[in-house]
């Protein structure tokens, strides 16, 4: 517990970032037609639900919301073992849709690679865009986010934690130094 902790975003900071991202998503896509949200478990699915709510407030339209668990698509089974699986739940077709993939923290990009492979198994989206609350750098793959809440320069040994209240409302983002 003697870790050095810095608060990157407090609750209202997180809320404002999500609201801005919602506007950016609608602006970039000229509205909400053929737009769907898919959050990456666990964390991204909660944020995707927040974005869905805000888009409904702005446009008055409830856009489809799904969740993807990428454990089956990981590239490190041999080194990390059989991690517990979550559930993928995409109860709508992705063919021809503009999919906004949502994650909490963008780091190496490997999770996003796995999530895109998973989405492709569900159909052929017209486009995949990426929304993240935090981009902490250190990419290992040629992947970038379309919508970013906050860019945070970090060291590899540091840890970025997005915290959620009960009811899965995001409450803070902290940077933990070793």
């Amino acid at each position: 517990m003697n870790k050095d902790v810095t608060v990157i975003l407090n609750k209202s900071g997180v809320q404002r970032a999500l609201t801005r991202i919602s506007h950016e998503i609608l602006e970039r896509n000229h509205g909400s037609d053929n737009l769907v949200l898919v959050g990456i478990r666990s964390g991204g699915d909660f944020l995707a639900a927040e974005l869905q709510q805000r888009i409904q407030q702005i446009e008055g339209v409830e856009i489809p919301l799904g969740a993807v668990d990428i454990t089956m698509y990981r590239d490190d089974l041999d080194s990390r073992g059989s991690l517990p699986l979550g559930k993928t739940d995409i109860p709508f077709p992705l063919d021809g849709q503009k999919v906004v993939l949502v994650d909490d923290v963008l780091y190496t990009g490997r999770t996003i690679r796995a999530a895109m492979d998973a989405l492709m198994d569900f159909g052929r989206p017209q486009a995949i865009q990426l929304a993240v609350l935090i981009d902490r750098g250190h990419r290992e793959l040629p992947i970038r986010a379309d919508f970013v809440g906050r860019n945070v320069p970090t060291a590899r040994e540091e840890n970025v934690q997005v915290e959620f209240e009960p009811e899965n409302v995001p409450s803070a983002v902290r940077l933990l130094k070793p």
Partner: protein
Amino acid sequence: MSFAQKHILGIDHLSREEIIQILDTADSFKEINTRAIKKVPTLRGKTIVNLFFEASTRTRTSFEIAGKRLSADTINISASSSSVVKGETLEDTARNIEAMHPDIIVMRHGASGAPHYLADRLDCSIINAGDGAHEHPSQALLDAFTIREKLGRIEGLNVAIIGDLTHSRVVRSNLYLLNKLGAKVRLAGPGTMIPPGIEKLGATVYHDINQAIEGADVVMMLRIQLERQGKTLLPTLREYSRFYGLNPNNLKLAQENALVMHPGPMNRGVEISSSVADGPQNVILDQVENGVAVRMALLYLVSGGEETEG
């Protein structure tokens, strides 16, 4: 939390937590079987050998489909078409297969303990798909998965298992599993088919099947293994059917929404009447469907497992 077992030799050596982890993992895999593209890359590059020394269609096919849906390469070897008929020993057969570097061998063998014997001698993971009259862990797991899915829980349920208890590896694995998850097991069958001391594995034994069925939440019928002993332990199949078969009348004694299960293949009109086998309470094809998800879970979990002591 990673899965600690390298092999799945039986339910006996699994903890309650490990069993629940397998069922939860299967729950996640089940969704893949209903996708348009029924394949995930999880076990890409892994080789799975299905080594079957006894006839099996359902279990072998289920393991094969499970492996293929996880993108592993699966190869089937059955005793009738292999060098076993030319006199090779089990260990030599296995060593020859191992020289080709499989990651997992799924094996069925007529001798109890055969998979344990190979697990001690080979480097790859071994999954027991049935050894003699000993264990059939994937069957018990798919049974438990089906019960949990349909009734929402296993703890506290009354499960009646009826039929040939002596020759059944299904009953042993189910006894271990249901006891570990807190169900109450009742066994019933003809006296010649009840092995002495089986109640020590955690069950109440009845000779009258009506007593076993009364108030049960699950009625699991076992197959009379006609090819094994049909003649010596039973006077006639008609008599067996009359005293130990499940029919609409004795099923009424069970709970109203009780599940009717059978590991297959069924002898219709012998241990189970057609009207029950096709009736609204049967979950027999759900068992088969869930078998693929459960076997995907086993293949996935042993692939990341570590060798543990003991």
